[in-house]
């Protein structure tokens, strides 16, 4: 599974030996996150965000299970049950705010983790499956987040459910029957609420299972690193424990500090006031917007305003799903043998343009659908598709990457540039996959 020099597990106490002989869990943990998992020694802080995502998944599951002890999934009683948690349940307010902001932080951490992957080529061979499992996790997160937001049964909960389930009616023939099947009715009502509660409780455990597969798939080749150069020998790596447990520990504590600032001092900043109004099927809010982590996709959805062969609404839905699905093909769209953006100057520039583009899309998604924002989202969405489907393949075919360091340890010990290539010799483009 791992590298030849990985330290084998030695049970430290009689009990651990007894346990390990019967169920090799201690061995498994040791080899996955303990002293027995060699990790490149040059990871930067962008590598902390995977573990942080796991931390926030745990926070969401724990706070969610507790909230489910008091939450009442009835169209009449849901809103009041949440307020009961906020006002009367001991400490209910902190658990509710933790869960609410935990969702936002789970997405923040995941987005940073994804963009790390995009920059450093973490999706390239042999880690394509790690990348795709990650996308599956992301899709499950989006479904879970959507259903969770419906549960308080506020105005945004109800109308968000209307809009999202309304997507399906964009599909000809089968769309409307699918929509009614999803809702268990003609509009979001008791049936939709109860089934969303059931699935919202279930999906995080499905996510946890896919996370295990994601980590397992990663541990076959081992973690990537900022140079994109493969691990060659023992001096390239350090055992995960205690080196990366310590690094994850301090950064995690600081990040939880940031999270605590939101929970205790700005708990409603990332939310929308309209969700403190009980759902009213007869009155649509002035501006229906989803939670901020869906805004880029919302912008793409609203950007299609013209019927062209297909109706605009259908274009919007296809593009919105397409914008995530195309990411599954990324390992084959970007076939450059050089993984890390640090050594791909042209790619690097376009990467930052993509970051700005996604931020712009997010800004547009949260704004009102006025001509200015619609126009901006049209340009930004066009760039998004062009970036992945046209620009990246072209770059990877034609760019001249910088010379790579010979190994991780050399780049660490002497600074990457110096070790790159001895003077007078052609810079080499290492085929990383086979190295």
């Amino acid at each position, binding site marked *: 599974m791992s590298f030849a020099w990985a330290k084998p597990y030695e049970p430290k106490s009689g009990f651990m030996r007894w346990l390990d002989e019967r169920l090799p869990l201690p061995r498994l943990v040791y080899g996955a996150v303990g002293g027995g998992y060699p990790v490149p020694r040059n990871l930067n802080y962008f590598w902390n965000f995977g573990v942080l995502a796991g931390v926030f998944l745990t926070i969401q599951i*724990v*706070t969610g299970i*507790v909230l489910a*002890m*008091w939450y009442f999934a009835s169209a009449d009683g849901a809103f009041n049950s949440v307020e*009961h948690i906020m*006002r*009367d*349940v*001991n*400490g*209910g307010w*902190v*658990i509710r705010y933790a869960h609410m902001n935990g969702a936002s932080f789970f997405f923040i951490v995941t987005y940073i983790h994804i963009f790390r992957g995009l920059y450093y080529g973490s999706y390239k061979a042999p880690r394509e499956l790690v990348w795709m499992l990650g996308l599956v996790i992301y899709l499950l997160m989006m479904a879970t987040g959507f259903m969770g937001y419906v549960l308080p049964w506020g105005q945004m909960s109800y109308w968000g459910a209307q809009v999202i389930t309304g997507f399906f009616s964009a599909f000809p023939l089968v769309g409307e029957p699918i929509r009614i099947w999803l809702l268990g009715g003609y509009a979001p009502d008791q049936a939709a609420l109860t089934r969303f509660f059931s699935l919202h409780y279930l999906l995080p455990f499905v996510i946890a299972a896919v996370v295990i597969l994601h980590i397992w798939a990663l541990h076959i080749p081992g973690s990537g690193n900022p140079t994109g150069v493969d691990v060659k020998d*023992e*001096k390239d790596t350090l055992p995960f424990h*205690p080196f990366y447990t*310590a690094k994850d*520990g*301090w950064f995690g*504590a600081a990040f939880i500090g940031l999270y605590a600032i939101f929970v205790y001092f700005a708990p409603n900043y990332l939310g929308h006031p309209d969700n403190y109004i009980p759902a009213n099927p007869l009155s649509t809010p002035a501006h229906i917007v989803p939670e901020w982590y869906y805004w880029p996709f919302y912008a793409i959805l609203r950007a299609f305003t013209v019927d062209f062969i297909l109706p605009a609404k259908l274009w919007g839905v296809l593009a919105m799903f397409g914008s995530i699905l195309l990411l599954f093909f990324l390992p084959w769209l970007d076939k450059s043998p050089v993984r890390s953006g640090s050594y791909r100057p042209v790619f690097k520039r376009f990467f930052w343009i993509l970051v700005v583009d996604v931020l712009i899309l997010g800004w547009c998604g949260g704004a009102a659908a006025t001509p200015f924002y619609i126009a901006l989202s049209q340009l930004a969405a066009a760039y998004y598709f062009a970036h992945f489907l046209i620009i990246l393949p072209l770059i990877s075919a034609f760019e001249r990457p910088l010379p790579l360091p010979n190994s991780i*340890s050399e780049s660490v*010990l002497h600074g990457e540039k110096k070790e790159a290539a001895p003077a007078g010799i052609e810079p080499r483009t290492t085929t990383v996959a086979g190295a």
Partner: protein
Amino acid sequence: MATKASAESSDRTEAGEGVRRRDFLNVAAVSFAGVGVVGVAIPLISQMNPPADVLALASTEVDISKIAPGQAIKTVWRKQPVFIRNLTPAEIKAANAVPLSDLRDPESLAQRTKPGKANWLITLGVCTHLGCVPLGTGEGENRGPYGGYFCPCHGSAYDTAARIRSGPAPKNLMVPEYTFVTDTTVQIG
């Protein structure tokens, strides 16, 4: 090569001089994390306690003016049934005539009622065996061999002071905390 050797020697150096400093700092950091975990666990556990609105209903006021001697009503307190009975003088005499040594759970009627209000018997309507609601409050209900309450589930029989006399129940029907707000209103809990 060089790095491997230095790595090994640094391991040895770590083991030698750095041990105390490293251990202390690491132990301190991990202890802080432990305190944090406890701090997080506290609200997660305490939230299971009854919330403020349930605690607010912890006491109920009941109007007893309509209960004639020999009658009883069933009411609710903390979501459980409560029997309020107005004892007749004959019932009071019968209760006082029982020697305490005959009782499985010895208590006199005076101990189970308020001074000057010996006719008002207020008890939980929950059998102390396994929790059924005994019969005897309604007109015509079976009051059992001792003229008090009778539990049909397993045959526990209570006397006129709601004390257990026969059957499997171990204790007398519980007397909750109550006060007479006025002569005709009782606050339970």
